[in-house]
């Protein structure tokens, strides 16, 4: 009469037949308060993982800061510190300057360094201007067009994402030097190469946004009397702008960052880009001017990203979520 529920066979009864409470045997009593081993306590603070994370972050960023430091080194060495100077950036011809003839800007500037910086920036802009429209159109086309041919096109357009740059670079190098000989190695080849590896990730970014928008908005616009083209122009494209903007910034940054494809295609020294110059100069004649150049490139990339972040945050207001997650989510 006092038994609650049905006891499982073999389980200790909490009440005896007379209805009196029977305490459980010593062995199943809850552990005494006090010491709880850390692996039994799911609410402890994760000190170990926090330490690992911070050590990793320091390890990943401090070397870069040291490289920036050495762009101000008052010596030709890139590894032993000898005091502060800005000669590697500008005006290296001053009396007895250490950076004579090799600073990036100003009098006594080394044309090769400035030229490489200009080449990289031009290439980044041109690549973005060509690749983003092509990639966006491809994303629109492949998302909405369903057929057997579109499946093949889909597979072809994803392959560059997974092809190592070494394979893409050497393939383009071979084909430009044997089949597409009228293009020639140099600026045009660089643009073609950079657009080729950019199209696929623009496709992935824009398509992700397209899928999350769905096609209800276009249908609604068409129901309200818009033609299909009007629906795309006035409804769909404005909604795609954040994704297109993010894709543009990433294309620009990826083009500035690219080494392998550029190294195969740049042709002669006048068309060299910053990463290729850094690579060849480290092997030949390293000096803090290289660090200065790398620092300028770093500042350019950071400025582009900060801009992207601020714009995304502005667009995101009221939508919830964080712009940083957007930037983290755009990788493949």
């Amino acid at each position: 009469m006092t038994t609650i529920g049905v006891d499982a066979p073999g389980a200790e009864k909490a009440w005896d037949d007379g209805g009196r409470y029977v305490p459980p045997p010593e062995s199943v009593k809850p552990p005494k308060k006090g010491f709880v081993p850390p692996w039994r306590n799911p609410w402890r603070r994760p000190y170990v993982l926090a330490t690992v994370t911070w050590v990793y972050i320091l390890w990943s960023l401090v070397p870069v800061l040291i490289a920036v430091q050495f762009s101000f080194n008052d010596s030709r060495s890139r590894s032993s510190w000898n005091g502060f100077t800005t000669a590697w950036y500008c005006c290296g011809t001053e009396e007895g300057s250490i950076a004579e003839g090799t600073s990036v800007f100003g009098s006594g500037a080394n044309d090769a360094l400035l030229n490489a910086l200009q080449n990289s920036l031009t290439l980044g802009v041109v690549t973005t201007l060509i690749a983003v429209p092509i990639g966006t159109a491809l994303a629109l086309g492949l998302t909405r067009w369903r057929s057997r041919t579109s499946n093949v096109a889909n597979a072809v357009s994803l392959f560059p994402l997974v092809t190592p740059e070494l394979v893409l670079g050497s393939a383009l190098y071979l084909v430009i030097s044997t089949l597409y000989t009228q293009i020639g190695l140099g600026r045009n080849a660089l643009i073609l190469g950079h657009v080729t590896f950019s199209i696929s990730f623009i496709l992935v970014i824009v398509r992700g946004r397209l899928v999350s928008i769905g096609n209800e908005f276009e249908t609604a616009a068409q129901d309200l009397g818009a033609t299909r083209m009007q629906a795309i122009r006035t409804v769909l494209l404005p909604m795609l702008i954040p994704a297109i903007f993010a894709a543009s910034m990433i294309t620009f940054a990826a083009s500035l960052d690219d080494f392998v494809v550029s190294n195969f295609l740049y042709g002669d020294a006048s068309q060299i880009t910053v990463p290729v110059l850094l690579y060849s100069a480290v092997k030949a004649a390293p000096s803090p001017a290289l660090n200065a150049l790398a620092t300028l490139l770093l500042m350019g990339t950071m400025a582009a990203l900060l801009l992207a972040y601020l714009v995304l945050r502005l667009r995101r207001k009221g939508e919830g979520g964080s712009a940083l997650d957007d930037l983290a989510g755009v990788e493949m």
Partner: protein
Amino acid sequence: MAVAEAVAEGRKDAATRFLWPSLAVPGTAWLIALFVVPFYGIMAVAFSSQLDILGQPIPAWNPLKWDFTVMGQVIDQSISGSYRSGWEHTFIYTALAMTLCVLIGYPVAYYVARLARGNRGLLLALILAPWWINYLTRMLAWVGILGDEGYANDIVRFFGFAKVDWLGGQWYVVVIALVYGYLPFFIVPLYAYLDRIDQSLIEASRDLGANTFRTFFRVTLPLSRIGLITAMVITALPMFGDYYTNTLVSNSPTTVMVGNSIEESIQSGFSRGQGASLVLLLSAVLLIFMAYYLILTVRASREAR
């Protein structure tokens, strides 16, 4: 009147039916001309049988005229000859670097995605930062630190040891440089996956009596399996094709990787045929990774539709 309208409507449909395919045409054509054809070009060069006056192979565009002599030589050299050490180094360094990436990268991604609270935004920005810093800049930084008079040797000497020739062809420097270079590309995709795991599943596991370790190995790890594999594939593909990291921190024949042989024979040497054959072999090795990643991506995009 109604018939005329219907006819006009039909005509409009026909005009817009080609809208989506025609939007896809420029991109597809670009990728065929500059991705598919060049890849075929590698085969045409690798399987060519004729040399021009400079001793470079003339591409054999007709598959009926393909000749596999050079490919056979390269395979022989890869199994037991001059390319063998390059392949060995590639596999061993990539495997070691991959292991280190998992051991360092998983805890970091896990902490930032699941445990960090107040400063999560800052942490995310900091683990994203190296992704955007030029790869060559980051390697250059290490070349400075590991130089003869660099900070690394300052530390070594501070503890009373003789200075180390870090950049003189040390295999462990190459492996650590690979880890340093590619770890950001490992952490970020894994972070995205770990971030998506439903916290209630982990709590359920705890409620059902599993301790921290058991919860991790029975719940969290299986749920992040796809993310872990994706991150590994994303990192392994460029590592297999890497040659510049090796050149910058070692530049010694004792650590040569297959990428170095490819770059040298295609660009600077007079053996494009051998280089193209090596590229084909490398692609064949990587095909299994690439196919796996492609299938995952296609499946994910199909689920999202």
